[in-house]
């Protein structure tokens, strides 16, 4: 009898807890997080004020490599000024795709790096307005990526410069005396490296996938010398990938890769490249060059003992006798619009500290986003190069870039799919670069028409 009673009791308790959890679940669903308004903007807050603020912040980052080292130091340094603000970092390996799904829950943390998948007109539903574009641009540059309607929603963590990371010693050993300035010069330099040294002239890092997006970053300002090419030429222009015939423009960038692969100037088997290992191999001179943004320099220098050999050159395209490079924003910091006002204020203070005081930008191979900041030491080769900053996209066209990109499925700056298809085609020997470009133009034009862009 007692035994039976126990069973019944258990059953009732189980049923009770289950219905309770079920009820709790549905309840949580009903309460939609309310947006809070902190009432101050990024330009108004000053470091050193609000030092008694208490907050626990959660910071989602793509920088998994320094979560336990550099970021820990930053937090303890920051806490000297704000002892009651605690920051917990969470590194996400597959950041670009994971963060998108997490954002939709609204309850992801306080600070994150805004993914490219958030369209500009959606920014206000996820992030707080950090201030007016007019005010903030007096102090900072490169704000246009995540601003909408004159309001800024994201502050870049640093600026990136686009070029090619290479091993100086290998280039010298191969007999390349001057830094190549055009695609042809670059190809002949790679050929010399192949003939005179054992190094792999150009390592694609094809297998890692995301590394291939570096090629997409060259096609706009670097390849054309126009700061607004991304919007005016590529998004709105007619057949942007067509051959211009003068070794400039997007075609010239991908053609350089096509030629390098088909002439055997890249690694033998792109499907088995190894990203982590490639850093040390470039450092040691087993790899001569790689196409990557300036953020990679520091990692290459630190990968092995020949850090001094690692150098950076502008992308080898010359437009009317001059080389250009784009200075563009890396991931932007965004603050959750559903966090409490205290957390939002604390988050803004920490972001301000990161930009003004931490030295994160230069340490990570970037340039500071502050107005009139100096170029770091390792970008010496860029003193004669025209620096082109991102220009704001005209009002009403803010979402076109993403829309056309998604609709056409080319994945520019997202998947590196175009550069990958170039490598694949060059190995197979078909389709030719011209046919590839025609396919892209066709998809691009169809997408433009669907979005409603007319030429």
């Amino acid at each position, binding site marked *: 009898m007692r035994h039976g009673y126990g069973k019944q009791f258990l059953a009732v308790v189980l049923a009770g807890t289950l219905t309770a959890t079920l009820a709790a679940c549905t309840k949580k669903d009903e309460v939609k997080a309310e947006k809070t308004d902190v009432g101050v903007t990024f330009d108004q807050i000053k470091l050193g004020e609000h030092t008694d603020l208490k907050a626990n912040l959660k910071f989602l980052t793509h920088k998994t490599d320094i979560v336990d080292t550099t970021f820990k130091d930053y937090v303890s340094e920051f806490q000297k000024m704000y002892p009651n603000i605690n920051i917990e970092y969470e590194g996400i390996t597959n950041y670009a795709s994971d963060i998108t799904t997490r954002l939709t829950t609204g309850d992801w943390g306080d600070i994150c790096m805004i993914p490219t*998948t958030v369209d500009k007109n959606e920014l206000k539903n996820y992030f707080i307005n950090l201030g007016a574009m007019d005010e903030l641009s007096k102090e900072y540059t490169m704000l246009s990526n995540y601003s909408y309607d004159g309001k800024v929603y994201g502050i870049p963590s640093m600026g990136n410069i686009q070029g090619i990371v290479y091993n100086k010693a290998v280039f010298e050993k191969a007999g390349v005396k001057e830094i190549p300035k055009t695609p042809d010069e670059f190809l002949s330099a790679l050929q010399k490296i192949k003939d005179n040294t054992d190094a792999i002239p150009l390592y694609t890092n094809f297998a890692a996938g995301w590394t291939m997006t570096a090629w997409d970053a060259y096609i706009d300002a670097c390849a054309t010398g126009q700061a607004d090419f991304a919007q005016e030429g590529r998004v709105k222009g007619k057949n942007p990938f067509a051959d211009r015939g003068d070794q400039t423009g997007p075609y010239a960038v991908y053609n350089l890769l096509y030629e390098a692969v088909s002439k055997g100037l890249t690694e033998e088997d792109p499907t088995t490249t190894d990203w982590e290992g490639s850093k040390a191999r470039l450092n040691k001179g087993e790899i001569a060059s790689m196409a990557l943004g300036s953020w990679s320099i520091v990692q290459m220098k630190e990968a092995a003992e020949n850090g001094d050999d690692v150098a950076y050159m502008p992308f080898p395209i010359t437009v009317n006798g001059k080389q250009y490079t784009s200075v563009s924003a890396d991931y932007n910091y965004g603050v959750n619009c559903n966090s409490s006002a205290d957390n939002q204020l604390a988050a803004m203070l920490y972001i301000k500290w990161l930009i003004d005081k931490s030295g994160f930008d230069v340490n990570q191979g970037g340039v500071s986003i502050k107005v009139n900041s100096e170029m770091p030491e390792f970008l010496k080769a860029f003193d004669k190069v025209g620096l082109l900053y991102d220009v704001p996209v005209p009002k009403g066209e803010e979402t076109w870039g993403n829309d056309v990109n*998604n609709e056409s499925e080319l994945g520019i700056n997202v998947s590196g799919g175009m550069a990958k298809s170039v490598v694949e085609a060059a190995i197979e020997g078909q389709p030719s670069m011209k046919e590839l470009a025609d396919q892209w133009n066709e998809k691009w034009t169809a997408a433009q028409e669907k979005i409603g862009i007319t030429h």
Partner: protein
Amino acid sequence: MDCGARKDWNHSLTVRKRGNDMNTKRAPFNFIKWIQSGKVNRRLCMVTFMLAPLLLLLVFTYIPFLKMFQFSFYDMKYIGARKFVGLKNYSEVFSRKDCFQALKLSGYYIVAAFIQLAIALWFASVLSFKVKGGGLYKGFMFFPYLVCGIAVGFIFKFFYTRGFVLDTVLQWFGFNLDSLPYWLKDKSINNISIAATSVWRYMGQNMVLFIGAIMSVDSSLYEAAAIDGASGFNKFRYIIFPSIKTIIVLNMILAITGSLSVFEPPYVITNGEFGTGTYFVIMNKLAHVSQKVGLASAMAIVLFVLILFATLLQKAGEWYFLGIGDQEAIRTVRRQKKQNRQREADNR
């Protein structure tokens, strides 16, 4: 009038209930007694214990599935407004070249699955009998199944790298490195290379299932067969195979549905490049790179219907050729009927 009738009905119900219940005597209604009574209590227990698995099933399988079904009718991204487009996504799935092109790759995996089943069956029938170090062999062959799919992908990425494991081993056997293909780059063999990894991974698991089934066969049958002078193959053909056909068909269904929805190996090893993008890899790319969530959901639903269809087809085949459970196969039944009829005709 109406009210009275209902009362009457209620009354008769309670009377019937009480009449059925042996434990409670005719006493005023007591909730605790009622809930403790055998029948109610048993049902309560049943419901309570089923609630947990059902809840998990509902929350993690059916609700997401229904949501996906709903998404498949929308033009939507993960973030931003959704627009109802009806069946447009479905018509796009059928009109796009890459979707069904990718399904052709499943052919490689289906062939691999049959090879895998054959090897597993062979090992199982050998290892079910006393073999020296049999446990060790079983352990070694089952081990790959325990490794997570992503890790398997990374293992094979290095395994197939030029001049690494596979090439080195082949060179020991006298192959020349220059005459060997690039296992993942060469489009004529890279799908075979990748399909081979899933054979490596799942063969052991299939084998263990087969061994379990073979173990359940009555051993006196083998003895009787041995007395009759049956060879090893005859034993397999007439004793083992008919006894485990259900498990074989089950494994086949699992292998074929698995082949239609391959994702991990090509995603991890080649990221779907160089012509190795299976249906799921393409779907993943559309959803996460091009943000076409509606289209990708429609692709998933189409594949779901295809898999359902393939499974039904296989079930029908099993029913016709092998028979389900103790039931004779339809084919044999028909044949017997035909023979009977013929016999009757002859007698006449």
